[in-house]
């Protein structure tokens, strides 16, 4: 359903973030991206919905290349994105934040009118699913980090997506909350047959939830397979840019912030 062909990303400052990459993502699969800091995980994820433009190669979804403006908008409206920092508007209520996920379905003119009651009801259903219905009208900045991330999930769900992209969705949460949030995302994706591509820094979460793991190092895919095939050797190759003993500790969530970056 989603294909990446010869995708290459070089940032304007000359950083080669992604070397020529070919990948396919099939419907309903839960894919985890692993890789050291700077390996290109965010770049790959963000090029999957056109937030990053490829320098060469292309991303195709269903009908064709998403470089086309109209197709990109259609693709984005069916693709939910979950961010590490939630990217919520603090002043707005949980409900209003979740409704942002419906914008892609409105024409620009339609936007001038308020959201329809049916859409609000859908948004409330999404909020209920992530267990926040009692906070629906509370300002987003009055929620805890884990609750805010669940609002982020609800905002993606209200799009009725066929694909969810999540860039380190649990990196700023404590381990127990991280597990709960990721478990919630996983169970919803499985229940609704939503494909997911999730970048993570925790090997144990990757092993527990992934159908497929893609390992990135220095902008190239160095591992692609089910968790059962991810042995010690493969882990070392994914995190090869790091000191060898650091790989052992890599299961710690905020590893990269303790040891610095490895761009």
């Amino acid at each position, binding site marked *: 359903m989603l294909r990446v062909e010869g995708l290459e990303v070089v940032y304007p400052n000359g950083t080669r973030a992604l070397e020529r990459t070919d990948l396919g993502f099939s419907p309903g699969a839960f894919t985890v991206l692993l890789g050291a800091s700077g390996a290109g995980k965010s770049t790959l994820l963000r090029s999957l919905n056109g*937030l990053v433009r490829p320098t060469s190669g292309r991303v195709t979804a269903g009908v064709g290349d998403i470089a086309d403006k109209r197709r990109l908008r259609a693709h984005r409206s069916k693709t939910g994105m979950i*961010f590490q920092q939630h990217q919520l*508007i603090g002043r707005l209520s949980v409900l209003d934040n979740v409704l942002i996920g419906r914008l892609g379905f409105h024409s620009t003119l339609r*936007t001038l009118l308020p959201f329809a009651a049916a859409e609000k009801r859908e948004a409330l259903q999404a909020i209920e699913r992530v267990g926040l219905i009692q906070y629906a009208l509370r300002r987003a900045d009055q929620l805890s980090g884990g609750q805010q991330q669940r609002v982020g999930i609800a905002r993606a769900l209200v799009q009725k997506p066929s694909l969810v992209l999540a860039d380190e969705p649990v990196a700023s949460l404590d381990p127990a909350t991280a597990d709960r949030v990721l478990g919630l995302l996983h169970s919803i994706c499985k229940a609704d047959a939503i494909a997911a591509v999730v970048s993570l820094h925790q090997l144990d979460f990757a092993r527990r939830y992934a159908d497929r793991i893609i390992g990135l190092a220095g902008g190239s895919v160095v591992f692609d397979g089910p968790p059962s095939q991810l042995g010690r050797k493969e882990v070392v190759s994914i995190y090869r840019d790091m000191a060898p003993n650091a790989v052992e500790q890599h299961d710690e969530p905020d590893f990269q912030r303790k040891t610095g970056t490895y761009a």
Partner: protein
Amino acid sequence: MSATSAPFAEILAQDRRIALRYAGLAGTILVVCAAALWITGFFDAQRFIEGGPALAQVFSEMVPPDFGRWRAWMRPLLDTLAMSIAGTILAVVLSLPLALLAASNTSPNAVVYQFCRVILSFLRSVPEIIMGIIFVAAVGFGALPGVLALALHSVGMMGKFYAEAIEHVDPKPLEAARAAGASPFQVISHAVMPQVMPQLADITIYRWEYHFRASAVLGIVGAGGIGFELIAALRVIRYDQVLAILICILLCVIVVDAIGAALRRKLK
């Protein structure tokens, strides 16, 4: 001990150099201020000595204030209030699109951005009293030229402040909206505007308060409102009426400022 005292001395010397530089800067500012006062004749004691009795004379004619004509002032005061409100809403309607085009994060391209910036600076640099004179000449006496003058000058100010507020929004929610398929217009309406609303309201209310005071002055060039009465009283040298009008204006300003403050608290 001696090993550490050397860097201490170095640090203290540097500290002294920094202090000296600040003293130099403060001295320069002082000299510039004194020069400005001297150029404008502030140190000419003679004029103050002669001016004192004249001032006392005017003041003695001012008291007691004569509120005898208060009935005739109610309508102009109401006009002034209406002018301040009309000028504000007109300024908002014109400023908002200009500000969106003049903010680097919402402007479509660099040419439009620069063009709108130039328009805003131009409007800002024409004083409203000059605009008032021009509009009085164009559309005749009354409140309308006052409103147009207030609005147009304010577009220059408010557009700039709006644009600044828009440029400082958190870009992350914008990206989230874009990722959900929102069009550029929807990103502005649903991710930019909700973030800047309190600031825009703040700027607007402040401007409204200012408009009330400014519209009193605009009356002087024939642009309607209580200022017209003020200049009329000045012309016939009725200082007791002038003081009475000033007191009326002051009371209204206090009321307007209080309403503004209450609105601002509401919108926090």
